[in-house]
Structure formats: structure tokens, C-alpha cells
């Protein structure tokens, strides 16, 4: 097999106006980035247009229970005779929406607290970081599980639970970068002309931590899809009859032994594809923003 040899001068990534060229350069070089982008585009397209194109009612029951995949029921039907394809299409929407809310929540709260802890220091830092330490002592999923169990399960609480569980990860990351910026000479210069502290945090510290923040946010998206499905699978997440991919795999698992493989496996594959697309795009984002990392 012929190898494509691409050996251009390694462009040093630069800030600002030359960025767009570097984005295309990175994507052109990376097959996984291309695959990830195509997959993500497909997933988003399905999430947006899917329920309109395949308009069967995801909640409508029928006597045709546990039907195997066919032309009229491409993903088969479940124990109540509901159309699994229609439920999966709606489930994709729900899972992605939850993931986006989780990522935004954890990013916003984590970035603000991380900048405060790293730049202001003192008791603010002590308070924030000790709390963070306590939370990070638990695996993220276990923490989310505990919070979700405590709050009770509906969509809002699942978002809160997972978002809170991810926040300390962002705090740690941002605080580390803010700490190293504290002694940067442009920050010293800014202090020397009398810039207030909030000004320095907003215009100097935060913009200079955007790259690692964005990379972590794309990771949050992938984690959140998996953890939402996971929480639902073990019964503390989104409850049936809401069409959620994790709870569908959980319900379907009971019918695996009786041969209805499609009920659990097809939603499971969809979860995997969503997570894969987020992860691959996340890797590409990291390569673009932080070229030294690979």
C-alpha cells in the first residue's frame, strides 16, 4: 500500500489571524479527525432531523411486541410494541442535550472557580481546592450516582449531578494554568498600570486558559453521554418511558436471553458512535489548540 508522504514545514501555530489555516492543516493530516467530524456531523444531523424524517410516535404501543428488525420497523419493537428506531432517534436528542448542558455547566462553574483559586489565592484557593480534593476522592461516576440518588431522578437532576461531578476536574485544570500565569510578565505589566484584579482575571488569565478549557469541554461531552446512559442503565438516571438510550439498553438486556438482541444492542451501538464522535473531535480540538501535546 502506498504511503502518502506529507512533509510540509511544521507550521508553528500562531495566535489569532493565522489560526484558520492551521485548523485545516491539522484536519487534512489526520484521518481520525476527518472520520470524527463526519461521524459527529452525522450524529447531529440525525439528532436534529431524525424524529421529523422517521415520524413514528416513540410512545405509541402496539400488539406487535418484540418484533425483529424489518423494513417497517428497522430497529424492531420492544415489549410494549413501541418502535425502537423512533425511540432511539428521540433518545439521541435527549442524550446530546443532557451532555451539552452538563459540559456547559461544569465548564462555566469550573473555569470561574479555577481562575479565582489560581489567581486570587489565599483563603479562596484553600476553600475551593479542599472542596475539590474531597470531590475528586470519588470516581466521577460514583459521585454523580450519589448526587443523582440524593436529588431524585429527572432530567434536570441528572444534568446537575453529572455537571457537579465534573466541575472539580475543570477547577483543577484551570487553577493550574492560572497559577502559572500569575507570574507572567504581561500580568505584572498590567498590574503596574493599575488594572483591577477582576479585569486581569477576565482579560488576561481567562483568555490564556481557553485552549485547555475547550479541550476539557469536548471530553466532558463524551463522558457525559456515557455517564448519562450509565446512570439510566442502573436506574438512577432518566426513567422510562422517556426514550433514553441507557435506559433502553437496560430494559433490552432482560430480553437478550429470549433472543431479542436488537432491543439492547442497537441503542448500545448508537451510544458508542456518539461517544466515539465526541472523542475523536475532542482529540482534533486538542491537536489544533495544543500542538505540543502529541
Amino acid at each position, binding site marked *: 500500500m502506498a504511503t502518502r508522504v506529507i512533509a510540509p514545514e511544521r507550521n508553528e501555530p*500562531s*495566535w*489569532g*489571524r493565522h489560526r484558520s489555516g492551521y485548523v485545516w492543516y491539522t484536519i487534512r493530516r489526520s484521518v481520525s479527525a476527518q472520520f470524527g467530524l463526519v461521524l459527529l456531523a452525522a450524529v447531529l444531523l440525525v439528532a436534529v432531523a431524525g424524529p421529523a424524517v422517521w415520524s413514528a410516535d416513540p410512545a405509541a404501543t402496539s400488539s406487535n411486541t418484540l418484533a425483529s428488525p424489518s423494513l417497517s420497523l428497522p430497529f424492531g419493537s420492544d415489549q410494549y410494541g413501541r418502535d425502537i428506531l423512533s425511540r432511539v432517534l428521540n433518545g439521541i436528542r435527549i442524550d446530546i442535550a443532557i451532555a451539552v448542558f452538563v459540559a456547559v455547566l461544569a465548564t462555566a462553574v469550573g473555569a470561574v472557580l479555577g481562575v479565582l483559586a489560581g489567581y486570587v489565592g489565599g483563603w479562596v484557593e484553600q476553600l475551593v481546592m479542599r472542596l475539590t480534593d474531597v470531590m475528586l476522592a470519588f470516581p466521577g461516576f460514583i459521585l454523580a450516582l450519589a448526587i443523582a440518588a440524593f436529588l431524585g431522578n429527572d432530567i434536570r437532576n441528572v444534568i446537575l449531578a453529572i455537571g457537579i461531578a465534573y466541575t472539580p476536574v475543570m477547577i483543577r485544570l484551570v487553577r493550574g494554568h492560572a497559577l502559572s500565569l500569575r507570574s*507572567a*510578565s*504581561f500580568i*505584572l*505589566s*498590567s*498590574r*503596574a*498600570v*493599575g*488594572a*483591577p484584579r477582576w*479585569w486581569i482575571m477576565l*482579560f*488576561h488569565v481567562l*483568555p*490564556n486558559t*481557553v485552549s485547555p478549557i475547550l479541550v476539557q469541554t469536548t471530553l466532558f461531552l463524551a463522558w457525559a453521554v456515557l455517564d448519562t446512559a450509565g446512570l439510566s442503565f442502573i436506574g438512577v438516571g432518566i426513567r422510562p418511558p422517556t426514550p433514553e438510550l441507557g435506559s433502553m439498553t437496560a430494559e433490552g438486556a432482560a430480553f437478550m436471553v429470549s433472543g431479542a438482541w436488537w432491543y439492547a444492542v442497537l441503542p448500545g451501538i448508537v451510544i458508542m458512535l456518539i461517544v466515539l464522535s465526541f472523542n475523536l473531535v475532542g482529540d482534533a480540538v486538542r491537536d489544533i489548540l495544543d500542538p505540543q501535546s502529541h
Partner: protein
Amino acid sequence: MRANTPLLSVEDLSVDLDVFRGRARVVDRVSLHVAEGEVLGLVGESGSGKSMTAMAVLRLLPHAASVSGGRILLDGTDVLTLSEAQMRRLRGRQVAMIFQTSLLVLNPLLRVGDQIARVFEIHLGTTKSVAHARAVALLDRVGIRNPERVSRSYPHELSGGMVQRALIAVMMAAQPRLLIADEPTTGLDVTTEVQIFDLLSEIRSETNVAILLITHDLGTVATNADRVAIMHAGHIVETGPTRSIFKQPKHPYTRALLSSIPRFDTNSPADSQLRGQAPDIFTLRADRCRFVDRCPAAMEICLDQRPPWVEVSEGHAVFCHLFGGAVASTGGERVVD
């Protein structure tokens, strides 16, 4: 009255550094003054306390350092007594500081013009568009060609000299009356260095800004400073008008520094008298000359008595036992009232 009151007057300033190795007095009872429109050159080796003195004036000392004594009068106000909020209003408008050249003296993610404009916004509450126009005018003023384009550039697109010019524009934006320049040309080539100093002296004659020039380069001081203060291991050891210091250096340290400059117009070899290294500030005792271990003229008295300040000619004083005199035993420069 006003003419005699210096703009900046540092009196018996001491700064302590508290680190893992212990506590050290890195600035020990230093006094100096800068008049309006004057350039004072503060010269010393690395670690002699020059930058610490400057940072104390701006109240931007690193966490491990703290002022343990003295007063810093800026236009009659003791900055050490101000609240952080009051101090913030002072920075930029009364006193600003240019740091050593590096690519990171400006925020890499903000356009150069915006960084200057922000100073107008902070201090004068100027609107964005007006601030931008004034930033462009200021870039033009500091000798940047095509200022409109440069104002929309990012720092990495500029050369080292341009970055330093832009930084000067940032610092002069709110028209401070005192500019502290800490090794403003380190890392620049000699031609650029000359241009930067020309620019600073132009700005001085236009705005009457006083400049505290911190450097280890005697040549820079000789051509740019009105007066010089020589610093060694946390003490100011000699101070006076530039001509007087260079023509008649008194302190053994100053002499050693001057004679270590190689000369090519005579056949005599450069006889560097400067032995040893700067003393370890963590082991210094208070009541002795801090130069004694390196001094070619050390005496018994130097080991256990703090040297006196002796005025050898008008405005030229030296901190040394060699010149006798039971003059006041504290302080560096005395303000002539």
C-alpha cells in the same frame, strides 16, 4: 518649596525576603530620591536589591518579600500606608513600570491597540472608540510606523524593539509622573537599545516624567542618567551626579566596577579589582559593611561597624569607613530641604 520636594523619596526602606532558607534583608535602609523630570540610574549586580526596591515603590513585591521599615513618599504621600484600591489608582497615573524585554510583556491573545486602549478605559473611563484612536496616536508617538496596522496586530507579529515601544506606550498611556524602567533593553540589540533610550529621553523632555532607570550596565547609565545610585548587596553604597561618580568614584565597589570596564584607548590592561562574588545575603550581619569581604581597602572597623554616610562633594555621598566622618549613620541620600 515645591522645587525642593522630590517626586519620589524613599527613606530608610528595608525589604525582607522570607523563604525556605530563612529570612534575609535584601534591601537594607535604602534611601533615594528622584526629582520631577530627572533620570536616576540605579546600578548594581543581580541580586543587589534594585528590582526589589522598585517593586516596593509600586507595592508589587512578590509574596515572599515584605517591607519591614521605612517610607516611600510619592509626591508627598506614603504609598506604604495606602489601601490596595488607592494604590491601584496610583499605578499607571502616578507611577508605572517597564519590565525587562520579553515576548510575554504583552498579552499574546490581545491586539496591541486594545492593550493600550484598556489603560485609557481603566483610568480615564474613555469610551472604546476614543480609546482606540488615542492608542493609535500613542503608538505613532512612540515611533511605530504604520500605527493603525500595528494596533490591530498581535504581539507575536512585532519585533522585540516594537514590543518594547508598545510597552512604553502602555505605560505612558495614563501619563504617569514617574516611570520605573527595570532593564528596559535587556535582550535587544545595541542599535535598538539606543533607539529605545532616545525615545525615553524624548518622552521625558516632552512630559517631564521622572525615570528611575534600573540596570547593571554602566554605559547605559553614563549616557542616560542625571544622577546615579550604586547598589551592592541591599545597600546603596554611593550616590551622586553622573559626572561626579564617573570622574571621581569614591567607594571601592564603584571604583572596581568602573575599572572593570575594558578600555581600548590606553595600553593599560583592565585591572579588575573586584574579587569574589556578591555576598550571600542570608548570612549577612546587620552591623558591618556588606562589601568588606571583597574590599581591597578593608579595615578592622569595617567588620563590626555599619559605615557612615559621608558627603564628599555637593550631592555626592559615599557609604564607607574610608572617608571617616561621624555623619549620620543611617540613610543613603539625604534630601536637601
